[in-house]
């Protein structure tokens, strides 16, 4: 059984484990609303749009979380600005802002020099998680999971029947905006693990697998968190023993769990 404990003898692996569990908890729970409200495109777009913020933060030597947060907020406002008045549809606005900001990130990185390799930003660097990152991730987890718990009633109401929500006085646009902020928190947390390109998978795959197994929000969230955390832990083992990129290993493990769950559902009918 030594092989089970061997990876955790290294401090960077222990940090990655704690970080991976926190990221799994955030992305698993938030991902449930991303999947059932069909806003996967938005979460993927947000992840791509924060690249210039990450690059600038790295150049300035400040927290990557701060850079991602600033870029995420700018992206959300830009999407609202481009699509205001309905002349440009929201999905088109998201596509425009996402690709433009991603291109800006790549341009900034190549212009600034010093970026021998963009891969830690593009594909994540979970093995580089430090103690301060874990503190930030813990705060994100409290904020994101706390918001889902406290506003569960309103999220349900606005999601299942927006007309009824409006007639009882609930501002469904406000609920949508609040959910996007929580999704942004999850995306920024996920980038540490899976990077700009793969973060969408952390939000979508565990929740999509959970949707095949459960039919209540609470069970869905517990299952999605369980699957996301399992993917993080198994992915770290795979990365350690097979020498593959940790972020990719975590995402592939999630995809494998999804395939197993999907296959089981199909066999069971």
């Amino acid at each position, binding site marked *: 059984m030594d092989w089970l404990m061997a990876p955790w003898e290294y401090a960077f692996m222990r940090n990655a484990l704690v970080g991976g569990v926190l990221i799994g908890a955030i992305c698993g729970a938030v991902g449930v609303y991303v999947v059932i409200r069909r806003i996967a495109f938005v979460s993927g777009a947000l992840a791509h749009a924060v690249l210039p913020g990450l690059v600038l933060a790295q150049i300035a030597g400040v927290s990557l979380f701060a850079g991602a947060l600033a870029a995420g907020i700018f992206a959300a406002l830009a999407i609202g600005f481009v699509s205001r008045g309905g002349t440009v549809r929201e999905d088109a606005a998201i596509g425009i802002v996402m690709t433009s900001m991603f291109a800006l990130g790549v341009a900034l990185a190549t212009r600034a020099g010093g970026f021998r390799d963009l891969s830690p930003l593009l594909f994540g660097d979970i093995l580089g998680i430090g103690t301060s990152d874990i503190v930030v991730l813990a705060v994100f987890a409290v904020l994101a999971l706390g918001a889902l718990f406290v506003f569960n009633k309103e999220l349900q109401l606005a999601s299942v029947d927006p007309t*009824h929500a*409006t007639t009882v*006085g609930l501002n469904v646009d406000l609920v949508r905006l609040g959910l996007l902020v929580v999704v942004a928190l999850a995306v920024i947390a996920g980038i540490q693990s899976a990077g700009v390109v793969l973060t969408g998978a952390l939000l979508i795959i565990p929740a999509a697998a959970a949707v095949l197994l459960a039919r*209540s929000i609470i069970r869905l969230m517990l299952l999605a968190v369980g699957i996301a955390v399992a993917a993080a832990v198994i992915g770290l083992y795979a990365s350690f023993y097979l020498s593959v990129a940790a972020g990719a290993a975590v995402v592939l493990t999630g995809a494998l769990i999804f395939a197993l769950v999907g296959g089981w559902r199909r066999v069971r009918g």
Partner: protein
Amino acid sequence: MIGPRFPYCGRDHEAPVPGAPALAASGLSARYSPGLPLALDDVSMAIAPGDRVALVGPNGAGKSSLLKAAAGLLRPLRGEVRVLGHAPECCYDRVAFLPQTTEIDWRFPIDVYGFVLTGRYVHLGWLKRPTTLDRERTEHAIDNMVLGGLAHRHIGQLSGGQQQRLLIARALAQDAELHLFDEPATAVDASSRELLAGVLDELRERGRTAIVATHELDRVATRYDRTIYLSEGRIVPAPAAESDHHGHG
């Protein structure tokens, strides 16, 4: 349809004005957007608390628009609409609205019990959790609509008739003073129609008001206290064959 900005908070709700009609309209005109014809054109009427009122008229007559105006979803262009003596946005907790078409996501992970419980949220507002009273009202509404055996079934697994009963159960769980039902008997079977008739009777016994847009002309004489006829957004006199039984607003 416009989206109102009502306060989602029970403490802002107003108590009914004593003696006020359950629903009153005065010179009410409304349209869905500029350039469109009026959906309601100079409508004036008053409905007493406890009445069961049928709204009758062809498609496009203004039945749904009148119900939406009462629910605060269609704002007056001219005139006013009062619910229990107040503007609709002051006492929407006392109004249960069952629209003809809904935007319900039937794949959303929620069971029958959880869905009907959402009818109680208007009394809770932000942060508060459902109480024992909320749960009792929910169970009573589910039993009333004979959905008890399906309480833990996912809403997407219900038949069309059961889904309509589910929506009525949610409206009943709200325990409102004024019930606005927009063609609730459309596309449901005979037993569901009988259930709905029983609901209207029970609401009347409890002094609650029900206004129902309906095409069931053969039943308005027996099931409703009063019938209001609408045509092209206006209240019109009863057709000659009907006028022996019913007044109009």
